[in-house]
């Protein structure tokens, strides 16, 4: 979660100029997992721009979310190469396995599923990226094992 101080630390990294809006918002997204309203309000003040403009950016760019995300972010690549090599089958597999659709978070807060355009790793398609780990040449067969490794780790914690 976030505190007012944490928000301020992120904002203070940047000069009070409009061109740093994107960068500051990305830092917030990275640190908190989403863009808290207080964060955007404080940033608007810092950059002397209307809150509505930051809100429009927050909803325009895919990198941002206004809702908190799960502990692990699953990015399923739906680039063309992945798509024709079974990406859509994988999507259904993950949906079945987790009971959520793209953009949603599991009730236990463990996983958020995102459908992304192209991770630029077409040579090992189809690809899923969980946090920073790439899983190339994914199949329905391998899927439960991969997801379970994260579940197991969560139980052990």
């Amino acid at each position: 979660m976030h505190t007012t101080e944490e928000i301020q630390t992120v904002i203070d990294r940047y000069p009070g100029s409009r061109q740093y809006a994107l960068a500051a918002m990305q830092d917030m997204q990275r640190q908190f997992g989403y863009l808290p309203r207080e964060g955007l309000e404080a940033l608007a003040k810092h950059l002397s721009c209307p809150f509505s403009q930051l809100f429009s950016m927050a909803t325009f760019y895919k990198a941002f979310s206004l809702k908190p995300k799960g502990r692990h972010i699953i990015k399923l690549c739906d680039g063309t190469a992945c798509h024709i090599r079974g990406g859509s089958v994988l999507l259904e597999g993950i949906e079945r396995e987790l009971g959520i659709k793209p953009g949603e978070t599991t009730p236990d807060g463990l996983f958020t599923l995102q459908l992304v355009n192209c991770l630029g790793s077409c040579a090992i398609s189809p690809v899923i990226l969980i946090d920073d780990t790439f899983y190339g040449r994914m199949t329905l067969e391998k899927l439960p094992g991969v997801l379970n490794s994260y579940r197991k780790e969560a139980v052990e914690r």
Partner: protein
Amino acid sequence: MKQTILVCCDTGCLANGARAVADALEREIAAAGIDCPVERTVKRTGCHGFCEAGPLVRIQPDDIAYYHVKASDAPDIVRGLTQNEPVRRLLYKDENGEPHTPRAAHPFYKRQEKIALRNVGEIDPHSLADYLARGGYEALGKALTMTQDEILTEMETSGLRGRGGAGFPTGRKWRSAAGYDVFPKYVVCNGDEGDPGAFMDRSILEGDPHSVLEGMAVCALAIGAEEGYLYIRDEYDMAVHAVNTAIRQAEEAGFLGESILGSGKPLKLRVVRGGGAFVCGESTALMASIEGRVGEPRAKYIRSVQRGLWDHPTVLNNVETWANVPVIITGGGAAYARLGTESSKGTKVFSLVGKVKNTGLVEVPMGCTLRELIFDIGGGVADGRPFKAVQTGGPSGGCIPERMLDLAVDFDTLTKYGAMMGSGGMIVMDDTSCMVEVARYYVNFLSEESCGKCTPCREGLRQMLAILTDICEGRGREGDVELLERLGATLQDSSLCALGKSAPNPVLTTIRYFRDEYDAHIREHRCPAGVCRKLTAFRIDAEKCVGCGACAKACPTGAIEGALKQSHRIEPTKCIVCGSCRTACRFGAVTVRGRTEQ
């Protein structure tokens, strides 16, 4: 001279375990001690190109390449170096089973000509010394001794055209920007590589970031810019890291920063991380995004060379374009222009992906034919399946059928046939790809990525998507294809930016070259490729089935019944038509039927 081991540490190879390979090699070298004829540190390089066969290891200067290397191979590799005997089992073997040592002899590499990728896979991208050792920043030094006009003339002579897809002559762009006496001016690198299926820019940024910085610095001198930005996709974490490191190194060494090589001319470069919007690959949208606004394109009555970033003269080029610049300045524009075709000079990097045998990144002279790319270099279609189409140019491109494979790939040829070379993504499709579904896929992609500013693109794409979804789900009607064509023509004529103008290309080319598939969906309610679920049923051919059980193992819902060594059967009520059985079957026993066919 000691030998050097290069390990590809690009995303693809890393996912296959390249880091463990590099670590194991370093341990083995250390264990072999002082007598080992190898540099102690293994060079962790950018992409070697041949991602399919990764993790890739290469030994220089002998040009020995090892494929599919595992950490457990490290002892043999190091022993092989000590005894001067390559490890045969890791080498490439030709069709007669004969191993080949020099990498250059491999069919995947034989026809390639590396200019933009000259250092990618050869150097440690985090080492400035490596870049300098291969002639890095010589072009910048030379440019400082040239007048602005000389630099611009050299660029014009080279015939270099923008590698992002539009193909605008780079030299002319620079000269226009140089002509305006409005300061400050800006140089911008477009690293918002959004075309699905393309990753050449990522590989250059990750594997050779200094070449891009050097290209930008040369341009800054030529037009009088003192500030620049590199807009890089948020998804490309490694690229952002590599470029930031490179900027810091170049500033410390005096190539960038307050005074370029002591000339008194400054250049400050900064990385801006993209926000994840495809439309930001469009130049004016990208500039809006750098300024801290929503990335919407504007009408280009006034071009960005005159009024770009913050309404000041701006030169924006694609990553690959920038990487070509140092070569042109060092070797001369005329030498560069000797490569390629009449109207498209130099080389182009392609990402060869999809259902092709040798997936990876290749660089060939312009004018190479699709057949050479896919069959000679790419080794043909994977798993012995028949070729159906190649999709070029990303969502703005088109699908090209087999009878047109002898077309040359350059800026102008493919455009005549409704497709385009674009940024160089090349996605090979076999008989298991449905062309209607591929068109639907691209229109879905574009309708989500349309910024919504102009009506034809926003609403037109939505309507096209609805029609295509209907066709894929068995609700297609007579006249749908003609309606798609009319909508497509409207989008081409009336959209504001290139996203909307080129958006109908995947639909129109599939209609033009694969009309029979549309008709099969609409009239016969079947999907010939077996992709559209609602129109497909899989059947196991009892004659061909040997009862190996591979399909039953692959089936995620347990829908396949049958005893071992007896022909199997799919239970239709359990089948979700995912096609896993078809992929798993090595005997071609799983056949595609229409839902209503018996």
